[in-house]
């Protein structure tokens, strides 16, 4: 475990924070490049991007904050503790960012779907960000007897309040996720938009990630909250349901049958 990468005088470079920033920078570089390529850079899209960052940051902190409310109350800490030290969730970040984009686009009267511009950027950012999780967070996953199960030293495990399974080999669940995101990134960058309708490639990726993450949670080692499901799984249920509903509606509307252009004149 490497929770701290470096100490530069009074500045401590946290592994998780550094990889989060690197992931965001890489994602925004791709996003910027795509916007530039299609010549839609401008004031409105800049405001929408700022809204996405704010929404993502707040969503990441808030969406699973209910998991720790009891602990915060017991310790007599203010609610702000949840915002500053509470759990961070990629799912919350994505949901908060998405909601902020939708709302800010409505506010600005911006009707063009920009989702596909994020479709390659998000998996790249998440793949890089997850490296930070892998290097600094425990548990890595649930216990496993598979040959690639990973163990950590007792000293590293002792640094975490809760680390079930740290006594033996664990699923490297973050590496599974990195693999998923890199696969999605490769697919989207090599094949371009996977669906003909603007914005649906991003939604397809989010749906695939939602389903994948729901499954991964069973071997992630996160605390069970309710009905045998973890916090992220409970949050994912409505989000995945909404995405499924979107695609059902799209299919029923026949939008994937593109209008035929006039044939070329011979």
């Amino acid at each position, binding site marked *: 475990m490497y929770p701290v990468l470096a100490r530069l005088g009074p500045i401590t470079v946290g592994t998780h924070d550094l990889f989060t920033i690197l992931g965001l920078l890489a994602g925004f570089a791709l996003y910027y490049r795509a916007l530039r390529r299609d010549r839609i850079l401008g004031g409105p899209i800049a405001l929408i991007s700022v809204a996405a960052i704010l929404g993502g940051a707040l969503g990441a902190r808030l969406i699973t904050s209910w998991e720790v409310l009891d602990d915060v109350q017991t310790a007599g800490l203010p609610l702000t503790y949840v*915002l500053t030290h509470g759990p961070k969730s990629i799912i919350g970040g994505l949901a908060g960012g998405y909601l902020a984009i939708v709302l800010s686009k409505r506010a600005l009267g911006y009707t063009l779907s920009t989702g596909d511009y994020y479709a390659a950027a998000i998996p790249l950012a998440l793949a890089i960000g997850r490296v930070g999780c892998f290097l600094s967070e425990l548990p890595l996953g649930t216990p496993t007897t598979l040959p690639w199960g990973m163990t950590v030293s007792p000293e590293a495990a002792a640094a975490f309040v809760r680390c079930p399974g740290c006594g033996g080999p664990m699923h490297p669940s973050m590496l599974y996720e990195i693999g998923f995101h890199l696969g999605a990134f490769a697919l989207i960058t090599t094949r371009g*938009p996977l669906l003909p309708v603007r914005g649906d490639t991003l939604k397809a990726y989010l749906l695939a990630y939602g389903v994948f993450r729901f499954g991964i949670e069973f071997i992630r080692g996160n605390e069970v909250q309710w009905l045998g499901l973890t916090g992220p799984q409970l949050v994912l249920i409505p989000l995945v349901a909404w995405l499924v509903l979107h695609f059902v509606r799209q299919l029923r509307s026949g939008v994937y049958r593109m209008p035929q252009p006039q044939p070329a004149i011979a």
Partner: protein
Amino acid sequence: MGPDSSDIDAYIRANRGTYTDEAMRDALIAVGHDASAIEAAFGRLGFQPGWNPIPDPGPATGLVAEAWILFIVGGLTALTGFLAASGFNSSGSLPLFLVAYLGIGLAIVLLVRWAVPKLGIRGAWAAVIGVALVPIFGTLMVGTCAAAFMNPGG
């Protein structure tokens, strides 16, 4: 520009809001259009009023947009301020705060949307009203926060 080019242009204009460039390119190639003519059409039509998603800023647009931004960003800021100002024991006021925020914020936004086109407010007046809305809304929110802070659990 020949008849082929105008067909390509019309197809792109009609479908650019819904379909990706790649999908339109494939559809055009499938019916025999020349790839270079398609690229030329995309070059001609790129970011023009035919598909430009950004409407011209009319008299109401700026102010309505400002009201929405106020509603979203102001609310998030106020929520953060509320959380910072209150201890956990006053969290019983959080639902009250959210209801007040949503109610007041939405009322302001709807009022602005309704009034601005009717009154024909534009230019400097729109800016003055827009700027004035922020402190008004902020005062209401600070008042709600202060009430929650002074009356924990209320």
